[in-house]
């Protein structure tokens, strides 16, 4: 019995909790990509940099608040700076739309051209970020780091295995639940949300029934800004902020959106968790788990690891390719908001 509990704690500590928090970050990012895809109809390669930009503004204001000795006690100061980061990210999105994307939308350009344009935006935002904050790794989480330390847990329960719970992980999961429920409520219940779904479903019909396209696009960028900034900040808070990381993050984010069915918000969320859990589960060494759960003679000698952790990123693309081959529209049927 004790062994069984121990093995459960191992799974919880090394797979389920990290998977949930990483999955939440991916889900928020993928939701943003999916919104752009459903309403504006292109693959936004700049999304990773938008996330990074939001995180950067949040960090700058976190530093400002820290220097003024304004804090939230046990919570990280970044939470206080997050609203400012969100506003800045929304402004960035609106500006990039006004000066760049709008023109091509009115020209009715093909999606590939818009994707190229988004690469241009990616370069510009990337440069702005590097010019402002450099390329160093930045740790900006403060406040109480752990809600529960491994040692505490061991003392509390008398088990061999510890369970560590970082506050950033709890904040991530908590914020994700709030944002997701708000987004889905907005899409399902409000008039604007319904008009957005109509616009995504059939643009001509939506225009015919008097939906203002500029308003829909504006609201979309606002939602994308909020989601991207929160996702970027949470990722930075959980691991650490490094501008280059976000370029690599854009691929798992795309993978999540496509695996779930691009254009489908619910799919994007599920896709985020699917990608996160498969990345972690395939590269985790299960030796400890099996040592607890199997009787002595059956205990494995090797690490019981399917793939080495070096291939963490490759896992998400492999899943992406497999899904595209077997079910090109994603797990949930894509292309409807």
């Amino acid at each position, binding site marked *: 019995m004790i062994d069984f509990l121990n093995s459960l704690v191992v799974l919880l500590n090394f797979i389920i909790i990290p998977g949930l928090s990483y999955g939440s970050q991916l889900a928020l990012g993928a939701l943003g990509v999916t919104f752009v895809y459903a309403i504006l109809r292109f693959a936004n390669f700049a999304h990773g940099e938008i996330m990074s930009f939001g995180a950067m503004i949040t960090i700058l204001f976190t530093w400002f608040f820290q220097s003024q000795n304004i804090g939230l006690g046990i919570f990280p100061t970044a939470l206080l700076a997050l609203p400012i980061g969100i506003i800045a990210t929304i402004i960035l999105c609106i500006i990039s739309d006004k000066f760049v994307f709008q023109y091509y939308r009115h020209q009715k350009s093909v999606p590939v051209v818009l994707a190229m344009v988004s690469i241009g935006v990616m370069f510009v935002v990337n440069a702005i970020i590097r*010019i402002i904050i450099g390329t160093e790794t930045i740790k900006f989480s403060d406040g109480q780091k752990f809600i529960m330390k491994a040692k505490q847990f061991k003392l509390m329960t008398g088990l061999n295995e510890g369970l560590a719970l970082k506050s950033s992980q709890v904040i991530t999961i908590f914020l994700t639940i709030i944002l997701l429920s708000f987004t889905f409520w907005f899409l399902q219940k409000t008039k604007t949300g319904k008009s957005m779904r109509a616009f995504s479903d059939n643009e001509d019909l939506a225009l015919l029934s008097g939906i203002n396209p500029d308003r829909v696009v504006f609201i979309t960028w606002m939602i994308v800004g909020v989601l991207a900034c929160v996702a970027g900040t949470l990722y930075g808070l959980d691991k650490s902020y490094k501008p280059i990381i976000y370029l690599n993050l854009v691929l798992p984010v795309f993978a999540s959106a496509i695996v779930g069915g691009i254009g489908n918000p619910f799919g994007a969320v599920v896709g985020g968790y699917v990608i996160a859990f498969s990345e972690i589960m395939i590269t985790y060494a299960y030796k400890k788990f099996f040592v607890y759960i199997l009787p002595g003679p059956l205990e494995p000698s090797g690490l019981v690891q399917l793939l080495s952790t070096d291939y963490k990123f*490759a896992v998400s693309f492999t899943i992406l390719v497999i899904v595209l081959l*077997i079910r090109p529209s994603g797990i949930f049927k894509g292309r409807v908001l």
Partner: protein
Amino acid sequence: MMKFERYEWIAIAIMISLFIFVGFIQGWSVSLVILNMCIISAIMTMGVNISWGYAGVINFGVMGFLAMGGLAAVIVSYPPIREAWQVGGTGLGISLILLAMLVFAVMYINKVVTKKSSKYWINSIIIILGIIIIRHFYLNATANIEDVNPALAGFLGGLGLPIIFSWFVGGLFAAGVAFVIGKVALGLRSDYLAIVTLGISEIVVSVLKHEEWLSRGVKNVIGLKRPVPYEIDLQNADWFINLVTYLNSSKLNNVIDINDRQQLLNNLIIDGSGIFVKLSYAILFLIVMLIIFYFANKAQLSPWGRMMRAIRDNETAANAMGKDVVKQHLIIFVIGAAIVGVAGAMLVTLDGLFTPSGYRPLRFTFIIWIMVIVGGSGNNLGAIFGGFVIWFAWIEAAPLTTFIINQLTLGLEPTNALKVHLLDSVPYFRYLFMGLILLLILRYRPKGIIPERVRHS
């Protein structure tokens, strides 16, 4: 032979004058270094341009194909490490045979089993079982190989042939990978295809980074043999000293003192040897570039090229005319990737080292795409022009930015925090320039600087 329009002649003149300009301002050595990279970039750009410009097949996997070319350079030119072959060769061979058997088994099942759901189940079970068995042999073999003298070797080495063969082999390697990717992914819509190729190129690079038995991984392979002479050999060669003396005879004759003259001659020889090496590279690369350019143009003007344009402009119509669109897409994707692979091998040849961790998508995929878009997709001269101009801008952005920042902050103290910060972040301004160039071109000249010619034939 093709005729150039007037603006195309202007473009060629601009390219040549850029290097002469840099030659006089920053020295001929710098100019040649930039030129070499420009030529390689131009070849990469032509590769992408062939698939995108001719047939509209998007290829965001440039980085992966370049890395395959680089791997070819290592495998062809590095001397074989016999010890590693002895300890791990059999194990690797067995796992390779098992892998081939697995692939055939899956193909056989796909043919025999018709029910879709049971096909997936049987396939996944066989693949998982196969992987478990292969891993047993494979991990043992690779661990043994990586234990052979890890500080210097730790990998299988290569064939020990002259590196120049690798340019061809690099093309083959990249074509092989492209064939697999194309088989898997080419049915997808273009933006999906972009993401998938980008993802697969990341997989290729991460395999090269972590399979140390093959490519030495992050430990890098250094000291690849050059196809051109070494500077130190040149400096001791009589014919080279005579050549330098002959070329600079007027300059040398002006110096009367014999010691001064010897000193001057030595300096000239050292400078000259560096320039000679870079020039030889440039000539080799130029030959490859012109060959590819010639055949690319031939192909574009041929009936095959016309078919490709037809497929690009209207896939359905081309299909209705009996053209096999899927097959032609695959062919052109493979050809484009092969040319990129050639460029990848040349890149490693020029550097003399293979660093898998150096392959990053921003530098090796997106910049190449900017070159294609800026130069003009569908026009080979445009591709070369784009490769030259963008690489030139990429290199010269830093000095230019330093100059601009210094001019703008002329009134500020040298210790001013803003000025210091801006000068520190000079390297990042090149990304800004690249993004702005791409956005401006896409907005005001969406067909590129040298657009594709409209042909009425």
